[in-house]
């Protein structure tokens, strides 16, 4: 596997884990996951309405974006990526390296 293919493969693995963890957390591990998932999506969509009502009056995003908006967007994406990376490293460490102090 090339390094790009390897990265894609690893990202797919991490995405699958993240998706399953998230789904289990959101549905409380219940069996009727589809119903719970649809309910969650509807709930999230509805939440956008009050969020839009509050935020829209302060934000006036137009393309092309100005530098400060770009910085905020980039920082948000970078922080999300860093969080995902730390989660991935933590889960790999948990799986492959148990505590080193047992004799």
């Amino acid at each position, binding site marked *: *596997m090339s390094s790009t293919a*390897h990265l894609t*493969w*690893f990202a797919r*693995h991490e995405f*699958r*884990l993240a998706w*399953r*963890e998230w789904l*289990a957390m959101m549905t409380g591990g219940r069996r009727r996951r589809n119903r719970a998932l649809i309910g969650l999506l509807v709930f999230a969509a509805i939440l956008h309405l009050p969020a839009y009502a509050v935020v829209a009056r302060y934000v006036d995003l137009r393309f092309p974006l100005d530098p400060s908006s770009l910085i905020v967007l980039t920082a948000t994406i970078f922080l999300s990526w860093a969080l995902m990376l730390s989660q991935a490293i933590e*889960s790999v460490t*948990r*799986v*492959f*390296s*148990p505590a*080193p*102090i*047992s*004799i």
Partner: protein
Amino acid sequence: MTSQLSALALRGLTKRFDRPAVDALDLTIRVGEFYALLGPNGAGKTTTLRMVAGLLRPDAGSVSILGIDALADPVAAKQIMAWVSDEPMIYDKLTPLEYLEFVAGLWGIDPRTSEQSARNLLISLGLEPHLNERCEGFSKGMRQKVALAGALVHDPRLIILDEPLTGLDALSARHVKGLLQERVRTGCTVIMTTHILEVAERMADRIGVIASGRLIAEGTLAELRERNGRNDTTLEDMFIALVDTEAAAA
């Protein structure tokens, strides 16, 4: 099956925590041997195996795995060995097949070839009915078997197991023992720590007893009995006598 090349050679291996955990240990295990490493709690078995597996750096000494200096070239050494901890650490949200495919991917094995060998490994460990169930609902024994299968997926030549049979029911233990014996028949070397002395007595070609980080006895069961002076002694009796003698001398 034996050969001149040793599967594992430890020379002067030393590790200290607040006290010496492994004390200038010399140990040679031949290719194709089933070797049982016994010792009381805190004797240094796990620390020794963790240093061999590259999970702990020794304070002194050398580790040679099939002729490869594991301290100088740990990647090459890890490619030909497997480490199975007593605490099975697997991804709860993956099925056994998915977990093995992931591990095979880490080793860079082609998914087309790894899928079949992963399936065969899991079936040989009695996990066929659970191939597509997530590991989160598995018992400790089932998790231990998945971890073992994951360790074997890259076809290692040296297999190191730390208490692999603890917590397994009779059928699961039989599956694991059968798989290990099959690997030994194909020329692999197995090193196993265990507190179940009957297993060591029945399965091991040679037995090493470690106490206070030092090897205090080693040999086949017959050799250990000969040294003990009685042919009808069980391994348990010999083990307790050895450990008591060592404790009295310390």
